[in-house]
Every structure is written in C-alpha cells, then in structure tokens.
C-alpha cells in the first residue's frame, strides 16, 4: 500500500486532542507529521529515512503554514484524517519515508528506515494518535525460504 492520500481541508482535531504550538520551519500542510528541529526549534516535515532527528515525529499539523508562521500540531488524541485518506480501522500507521507522509505498517517491511509509530486507524476516517519515535532502524523482512 501507499502513503495515505490526505486532503488537507478534511483534517480536523478531535475533542480529545492535545496540542503543541510552535513555528513552522518550512511549508507544512494539514495532516503532515512534523518534528521539532533541535537547533532552531522550528517544526519541519518528519521523514523516516532521512535521519534519526527527522524521524522523531512530534505531532500532526492541523493547518497550513509557511516558514516562520505559527503552527499548531496535535500530539495525542483522535484526529480526523478525512474520507480521502480513509485509514483502515485497527491498522497501525507509521511515519513514511516520504517527508510528511503516513504509511500503513506493511510499507515499512523493506527496512532501512527509523521505526516511528503514528497511531491506529479508527472509525469515521480517524486515527487515534500514539506517536512513538523508537529511534530504531527497521530490519529488512527476510523473504528467503
């Protein structure tokens, strides 16, 4: 499977959402996982295979922002990803190797990227966030007989 196809305008924080407010360090759209740069403290697109730092996802952007604009992200709770994304109920979603992407767990089987949990798909096109950057590299799945 591929990364979730997220329509930014359909991303809505749930009533149980927990937020973090920061400043964007690059162009970010709603629904993209972001990390906080330890040097400039700005929020930037998370990426599972760029570096340990970029895989350290902090939350999901809740609106669009360009560099130096304020950005609110959701760090826990339920988030509506929208009908276009349609996360599968009960499926574990992880940070993608595409910057700002969210991918189902089976897409990480090739290995080589940092393993960062995003959350679990739930009803009504939502994800229950459980963001956990393990800091560990996923081993390649052994397909030999």
């Amino acid at each position, binding site marked *: 499977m591929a990364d979730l196809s997220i329509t*930014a305008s359909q*991303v*809505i924080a749930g009533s149980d959402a927990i*937020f973090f407010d920061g400043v964007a360090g690059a*162009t970010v759209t709603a629904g993209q996982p972001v990390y906080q740069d330890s040097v400039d403290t700005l929020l930037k697109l998370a990426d599972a295979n760029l570096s340990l730092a970029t895989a350290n996802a902090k939350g999901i952007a809740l*609106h*669009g922002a360009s560099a130096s*604009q*304020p950005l*609110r992200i959701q760090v826990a709770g339920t988030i509506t990803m929208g009908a276009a994304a349609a996360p599968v109920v009960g499926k574990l979603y992880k940070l993608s190797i595409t910057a700002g992407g969210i991918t189902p767990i089976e897409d990480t089987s090739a290995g080589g990227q940092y393993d960062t949990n995003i959350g679990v798909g739930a009803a009504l096109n939502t994800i229950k966030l459980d963001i956990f950057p393990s800091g560990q590299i996923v081993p390649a799945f052994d397909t030999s007989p």
Partner: protein
Amino acid sequence: MAEISQTPASVIPGSDAIYARGIAGGTVTAGAPVYLDETTQRYLVADANASLSTAEVKGIALGAASAGQPLRIQVAGTITIGGTVVLSTIYILGAAGGIAPASDLASGWFTTILGVATSATQLRLCIFASRALKA
C-alpha cells in the same frame, strides 16, 4: 491605488506581535483580515462591503486553515504583510479579504482601519472597526 497583492508564504508576524487563537469557519489564507462570526464563534474572511459584521476585523490570519481547523491571528504589533505597501500610508479593509490604502475607501464600505505601513513590506497594526458606512 489598488488592494495590495499578497503572497501568503511571505506573511510573518513581528517580534512584537500580539495574537489571538480560534477556529476557522471557512478557507482562510495567511495575510487575510478575518472577523469572528458571532453565531458560530469561528473566524471568516472579512469584507468591507458585505455587512457590518463582516467588517468587524479582529486580526490578520498568520497561516492557512480550512473550516474547523485552528487559526492563529495577529491582532496588534508589526506584521510583514506579504506584499508591497507605501511607507506612512494608512491601510484599511477592502472587499473580500483585501487590504487597501485608505484612499481606496468607496461608497458602501464600512471603514475599518488595519494599520499604517512602517516600511515597504510591513504594517504596524492598529485595527479599528469604526462601523461607519461610507455614503
């Protein structure tokens, strides 16, 4: 003069910015003046000639948001407005989310002052919704 042409990605709050926070009621882009819908309590793009309520500007949007998404606005202080302005000129709310020089005030507009240009790229916000309708 005409309303200023804005690039949303270039809209940046100054270090003296004062903020308010809320939820967007429709699509809003950075740099747009917004008002607070009294019924839904959500921010919408302001408009000088739609109604008295749409001219009651609360601040300038600092990011992009769709309906139901969080939105931070700047209510005072200096803002890089994302377009070219003329030093010392007073800027007012224009039509449909625009920002216009005061000389553009037209019949049928509620006069809402946004601020004064302090450079070719910045406004010092002084938002004042007069509720006065230009005859």
